[in-house]
């Protein structure tokens, strides 16, 4: 099972668990109909598209309402800590959860007690809490953007907002940021660094960069990074290695962006719908 986890920005939305389904109005998890937008929703939508294209079972989604008060995030942490052994999860992706080091460590403790540990992917808040708690080594894939990569490279920062200026200034030197992050054990085994040039790294080595097609307008569009994380999740679930999944997702993201002919005002749901066509082009 591919399990996708993260809060949805709706106050008081109850915890919901179910296969992700798409309707003409949005996507559904359990009985909750949700808008396809940035954040967890964009990640789930992209993963769903990949699963559809590979003829796989629809991902399982675990969501709860959280507008930043931690309420939904706490429900998700508790679900993960108490119920993971009940599910046959092979790939687990965590997303916009509010960082809570103690709860995340509790979840990781339960995860590591499983007989078969799922491949663990983290982006956004889930990546922040992993690094802040000194737990990055438990994760298989992180998908930082440049600002987040600088955060991973700063061994003292507990959140991207605290990244020290001299490290933030290194954003044009991604290899150095990658080196620092791995040297301080603050990176997952595989990194997909999102930017004008995407970097795919494993065990501290940069294996590949992707810079074409260069669609400048994608940078301001909220949710394009979430889309990459969702595609990587779906591709790993489809049997690709983390590095191969990153290679494909990076290219599909750029191709889908190109097909959508975006401006900086484009919304991510208008790019996600091009994933099937972009995937076909990339895989030939």
């Amino acid at each position, binding site marked *: 099972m591919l399990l996708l986890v993260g809060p949805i920005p709706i106050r008081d939305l109850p915890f919901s668990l179910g296969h992700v389904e798409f309707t003409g109005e949005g996507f559904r998890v359990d009985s909750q109909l949700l808008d396809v937008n940035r954040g967890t929703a964009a990640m789930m939508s992209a993963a769903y598209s990949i699963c559809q294209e590979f003829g796989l079972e629809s991902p399982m989604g675990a969501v709860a309402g959280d507008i*930043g008060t*931690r309420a*939904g995030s706490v429900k998700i942490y508790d679900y993960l800590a108490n119920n993971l052994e009940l599910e046959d999860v092979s790939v687990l992706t965590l997303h916009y959860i509010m960082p809570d080091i103690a709860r995340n460590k509790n979840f990781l403790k339960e995860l590591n007690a499983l007989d078969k540990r799922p491949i663990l992917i983290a982006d956004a*808040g889930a990546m922040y809490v992993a690094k802040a708690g000194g737990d990055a080594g438990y994760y298989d894939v992180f998908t930082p953007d440049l600002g987040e990569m600088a955060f991973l490279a700063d061994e003292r920062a507990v959140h991207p907002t*605290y990244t020290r200026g001299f490290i933030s200034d290194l954003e044009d030197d991604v290899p150095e940021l990658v080196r620092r992050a791995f040297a301080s054990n603050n990176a997952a085994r595989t990194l997909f660094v999102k930017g004008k040039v995407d970097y795919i790294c494993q065990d501290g080595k940069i294996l590949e960069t992707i810079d074409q097609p260069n669609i400048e307008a994608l940078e301001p569009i909220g949710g394009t990074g979430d889309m990459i994380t969702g595609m990587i999740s779906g591709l790993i679930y489809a049997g690709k290695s983390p590095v191969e999944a990153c290679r494909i997702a990076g290219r599909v993201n750029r191709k889908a962006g190109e097909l959508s002919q975006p401006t900086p005002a484009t919304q991510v749901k208008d790019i996600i719908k091009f994933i099937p066509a972009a995937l076909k082009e990339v895989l030939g």
Partner: protein
Amino acid sequence: MKWFKKDVKEKMPGQSEAVTRGLLIFADTGSVMQAEQILKEESYDIKVVSPPAKYRSGCDLCVEFPLVEEPGIARLLKQIGLPPIDVLPVSKNGLEPLRLCRTKDFGNYLMVRSANMKITIDKKTKRIVNISGGGCPDVPYLACQMVGRVLAESPEPVMIGFSLCAYSLNTAREEMLKIAGGEDASSGRPHTH
């Protein structure tokens, strides 16, 4: 004041420098951001910094303030219903939030980034067309509340958000207000960096 003076006497191990600043610890980041706004409006020499390790959950701020200002600050915070949950003395500055902003011009659109948060406006209409980056769960919520609104009329992230990402987005929004050539009509107060 009782809560404060008790803590001043309890020096940290190995601490030998003069204690001239204190930390106000709050229950959540949203309270910190509100307290910061109000204390700055009252011209207190304060700044937000990372709290000590024992108070960290991974998305935290606290307020560093001059000890000599304690009576007035304590009274004000009590009056507005934002009492801190703890107060600590400090002898040196903690880590400060990154307030450096970068701008990128996309022709008809302008983007400002602070730390991990980006805000983009249509230069002609001054409407916010996108918000991206960030990782805390209030980011998608803030985007829902702000995208499509005229920049100066959009809500301040620190007033409706709860996380450090909201704090960074607020910094980016303030910078955009300065660049886009308009005072923040929604608050009527100057922007500080």
